């Protein structure tokens, strides 16, 4: 089990959602993350760049047929940091006597189903 440690970089709302998605997966495609979180290409690219520069994710690009695809996954450091962050959150909740699930629902972001693939994926901000 990872040591409990609050991670401010992960805790930012959008990055928390991204890391939570990646934490439950071995890898996720850029457009899946984008559609799941209802983010624009540029907003997701920006957050992925921050996580990538921190060494928390790995980004892989390849062509599937003629289409460029981008996948992201948590690095070992990222998974350790995420697990430590979750442990810290649990500690805070437990110490307060608040049972998990009592907290009010987080603000719902606009959800959308995966969209048809666009002509390309943003490369400018991914930095790999």
């Amino acid at each position, binding site marked *: 089990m990872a040591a409990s440690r*609050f991670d401010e970089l992960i805790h930012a709302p959008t990055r*928390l959602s991204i890391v939570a998605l990646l934490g*439950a997966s071995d890898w996720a495609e850029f457009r899946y993350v984008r559609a799941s979180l209802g983010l624009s290409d540029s907003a997701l690219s920006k957050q992925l760049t921050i996580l990538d520069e921190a060494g928390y994710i790995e980004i892989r690009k390849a062509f599937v047929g003629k289409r460029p695809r981008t996948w992201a996954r948590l690095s070992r450091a990222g998974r350790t940091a995420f697990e430590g962050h979750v442990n810290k959150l649990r500690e805070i909740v437990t110490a307060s006597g608040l049972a998990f699930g009592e907290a009010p629902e987080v603000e719902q972001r606009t959800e959308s189903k995966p969209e048809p693939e666009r002509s390309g994926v943003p490369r400018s901000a991914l930095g790999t």
Partner: protein
Amino acid sequence: MTNVIEPDEAGKALTEISRRQGQVIDAASVPSWYWWIVAAASVALGLVVDGRDPVAIGVVAVIYAIGVAVLTVWVIVGGVRHVKVNERMLGPEGTGLIIGFVGLVVVGTIAIAFALRSAGVAQAGTLSTLVCGVALVIGGPALMSRLRIVMQRHRAEAR
């Protein structure tokens, strides 16, 4: 760096994490049309087997094996998948459920076919693959529901 947040904020964060992990679990389910296609292909194979034409049986069996293998790989890790659920979420129990279901369907279909043939039933291949098809169409989605429960439990245990 601020290392202290309020408990309700921590609770909200944990709720958000749980919701996003649930999204991945839902996305990992095999679509129901997959089971219908494999079931239909199995019945077609049974029909050909009952035709007793060795060449036709050989050709269709090879097409069936390759077709089902390619479709399975494509569905699980390929074209329609945009995310791969973490293997730790599935765990040994989930893996065992998948292997057990596939084994039960395959062994059950073969056993029924031999039993019917021994009883002198002419359409043993067709009937046994019909049973196989029904098992896939009903059992496949049921397996997916069960796997979803297993993954949700593993997710909860990991929290």
